[in-house]
């Protein structure tokens, strides 16, 4: 294929300006999600064809309010727009603006105009402006700003064709300079331009204002800029405030000129009336917890149907392969290692899709900002953010989608803490472990004729996880040192109906990100764990049958009993079995033997594997149902004491261990994906394991 001219078009705008809707409108499903090199910021690109057949690559940049970045997301935008000599520098910048909020939006517009990149101003939500009885003279707006202005409606698609037409014509860079440099800044700017050769004054001025946030500058350039700053007494933020005031001055006179009917200064819109209820001291929280309950309930309950289906599908695929392919190590690897591993990835898709459908609706409708508003004061005490509530509660269903949901938290420290503590919330995979252990050690009795003791114990485990999450957050708050001051300056957007296609794009995007990024690691660990559990040193595995037959020659065993015995023998002599035995000295103080040790090793794949391993190891694998496992575990004798192995002390110790331990490779994989590195998942694994170990030790020693 011959190299075709591809136009690079960057979409820039405030959060809530409809930028993502516009991006979805322009590119449809021709989208790709990647990451900006070296950082965790997501990069959305998409291809579209313009009316003159030019191919355009659109890049959806993170929402910003100004060119002065406050977060990593925002810094990316400044870097892309200021690095004019980079091959990634956009040919055209489309600035999307919420026309109902023109005044504040114009601050960013004027900054970008001053950068001198060819740009188009896309005025979104013009229909809402018209409804409120205001009209703007778009011709004089375009003339005064010196850039083309296109009214659009990113929800219905109105004006998109016109925008594409404007984009296909060659757009001259704006020549207007809106911001007049302060006299004290002029010499420094002039000198910098002469040496580094920037395109215009404002670009040079930005280099002097914030070299620290522009990572593309070479060390030579940086030291030169530092000298200049010294010489001309530039210090960060010196002119920043004055610049903002000057720009707002320009914006006010611009608006006076182009507004055809002045906006009535009322604050009694529909949003204000909604806010009366939604942020009400009682109804606000009632509604908030009702929504959380709905989210929780749907991940917990609705997701099980597709999850069971996926589970069954992969199980029958595995059986099918075992039956059809020639017997051998490769077939076993495929049917018992790879296919179940893939199934272990796919099983999370329903939960991820449902959670992100809700999150997307909450964000699109404007509710998320209110949730933060309601919860900020409480969560702040624990080093968390109002937005942490959604991941924490979703964590009760599953930590995987919950951790992915922390993306909505802007503050890096608060987001990291939320990621670190979310897996302490008792997820649904712990439920089978909890129920079997509780049934084993807690009597099935009623207290006060109303509460079932076992039910109370189960609730206690959930509360324990929740308390541990909050307390850990509180402690971690003091351990993570950052210079980032915590503040909350957040727009409360007007309430809107969610745009359903945006909800759909979000679901597709998040699911893809999970399957392709975290999925790789989950698959790898699944295969490793499978190898550990199915192979062992020596000939014990291959000749398991002979050994068991020899051992059991005097017992009359039915065929399935014999098979179960062989499976147990194989597991005992596999690498996982050896690992379980070798950690016995470490876990003995917790009251565990090597059999529990093996279950700890294998259930690292997922906590619920504990039950299956117990079934295999106690040779009841073929009748894996809860009652059988329970009675078998109850009958197990501790050779040291002669009493039952699963005393209340051991049972509670195990319960506490499973509440706190990071027994989930998928969570590790997703934390790796979300924090872009092994540092945080490892810290998390270590602290949770220590917490689990020490707590289980205390419980066992106190109770026994």
């Amino acid at each position, binding site marked *: 294929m011959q190299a075709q001219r591809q136009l690079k078009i960057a979409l820039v705008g405030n959060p809530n300006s409809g930028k993502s809707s516009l991006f979805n409108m322009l590119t449809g499903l021709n989208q790709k999600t990647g990451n900006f090199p070296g950082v965790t910021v997501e990069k959305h690109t998409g291809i579209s064809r313009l009316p003159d057949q030019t191919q355009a690559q659109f890049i959806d940049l993170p929402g910003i309010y100004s060119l002065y970045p406050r977060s990593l997301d925002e810094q990316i935008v400044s870097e892309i727009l200021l690095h004019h000599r980079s091959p990634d520098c956009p040919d055209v910048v489309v600035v999307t603006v919420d026309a109902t909020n023109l005044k504040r939006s114009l601050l960013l517009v004027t900054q970008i105009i001053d950068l001198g990149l060819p740009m188009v101003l896309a005025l979104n939500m013009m229909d809402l402006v018209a409804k409120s009885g205001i009209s703007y003279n778009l011709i004089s707006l375009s003339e005064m700003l010196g850039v083309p202005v296109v009214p659009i409606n990113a929800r219905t698609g109105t004006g998109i064709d016109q925008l594409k037409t404007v984009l296909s014509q060659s757009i001259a860079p704006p020549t207007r300079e809106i911001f007049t440099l302060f006299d004290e800044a002029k010499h420094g700017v002039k000198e910098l331009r002469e040496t580094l050769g920037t395109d215009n004054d404002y670009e040079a001025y930005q280099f002097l204002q914030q070299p620290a946030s522009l990572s593309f500058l070479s060390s030579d350039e940086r030291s030169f800029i530092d000298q200049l700053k010294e010489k001309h007494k530039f210090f960060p933020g010196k002119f920043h*405030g004055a610049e903002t005031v000057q720009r707002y001055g320009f914006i006010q006179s611009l608006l006076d000129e182009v507004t055809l009917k002045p906006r009535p200064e009322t604050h009694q819109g529909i949003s204000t009336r909604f806010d009366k209820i939604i942020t009400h001291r009682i109804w606000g929280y009632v509604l908030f917890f009702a929504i959380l309950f709905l989210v929780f309930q749907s991940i917990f309950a609705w997701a099980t149907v597709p999850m069971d289906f996926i589970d069954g599908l992969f199980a029958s695929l595995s059986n099918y392969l075992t039956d059809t392919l020639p017997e051998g190590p490769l077939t076993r690897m495929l049917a018992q290692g790879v296919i179940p591993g893939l199934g272990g990835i796919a099983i999370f898709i329903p939960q991820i899709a449902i959670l992100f459908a809700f999150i997307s609706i909450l964000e699109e409708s404007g509710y998320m900002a209110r949730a933060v508003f309601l919860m*900020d004061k409480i969560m702040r005490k624990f080093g968390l953010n109002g937005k942490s509530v959604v991941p924490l509660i979703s964590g009760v269903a599953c930590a995987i989608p919950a951790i992915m949901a922390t993306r909505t938290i802007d503050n890096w420290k608060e987001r990291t803490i939320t990621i670190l503590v979310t897996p302490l919330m008792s997820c649904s995979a712990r439920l089978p472990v909890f129920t079997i252990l509780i049934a084993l050690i807690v009597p099935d009795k009623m207290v006060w004729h109303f509460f079932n003791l076992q039910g109370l114990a189960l609730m206690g485990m959930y509360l324990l996880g929740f308390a541990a999450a909050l307390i850990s957050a509180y402690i971690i708050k003091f351990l993570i040192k950052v210079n980032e001051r915590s503040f909350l300056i957040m727009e409360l957007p007007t309430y809107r109906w969610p745009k359903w296609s945006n909800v759909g794009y979000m679901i597709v995007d998040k699911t893809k990100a999970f399957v392709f990024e975290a999925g790789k690691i989950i698959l790898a660990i699944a295969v490793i764990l499978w190898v550990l559990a199915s192979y062992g040193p020596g000939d014990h595995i291959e000749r398991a049958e002979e050994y068991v037959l020899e051992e059991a020659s005097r017992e009359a065993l039915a065929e399935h009993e014999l098979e179960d015995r062989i499976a147990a023998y194989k597991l005992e002599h596999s690498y996982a079995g050896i690992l379980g035995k070798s950690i016995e000295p470490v876990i003995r103080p917790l009251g565990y033997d090597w059999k529990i040790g093996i279950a700890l090793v294998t259930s690292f794949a997922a906590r619920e594997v504990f039950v299956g391993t117990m079934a295999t190891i106690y040779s009841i694998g073929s009748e894996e149902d809860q009652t059988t496992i329970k009675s078998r575990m109850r009958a197990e004798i501790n050779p040291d004491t002669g009493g039952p192995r699963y005393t209340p002390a051991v049972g509670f110790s195990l319960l506490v261990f499973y509440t706190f331990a990071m027994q989930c490779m998928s969570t590790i994989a997703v934390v790796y994906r979300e924090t872009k590195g092994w540092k945080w998942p490892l810290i998390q694994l270590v602290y949770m394991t220590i917490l689990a170990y020490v707590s289980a030790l205390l419980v066992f020693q106190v109770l026994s």
Partner: protein
Amino acid sequence: MTSGKRSVAQMKPGEVAVIAELEDDFISLKLMEMGCIPGATVRFNFSAPLGDPICISISGYELALRLEEASSIAILN
């Protein structure tokens, strides 16, 4: 006490005032970018049920901020 100098944090629901100055250097740059510039009209809408954060109207839209940030916005009275 300086002669009755008030900040947005001390306003009452429904009260309208004009911003005099921003007193916290770090936060002020961010606040100004969001439209809180000296001379702008600010309206205190309501506070969260626990008293913090608060919601104000500025430059024709609604902005939420904590009392800590609000107390750095001095108003004329």
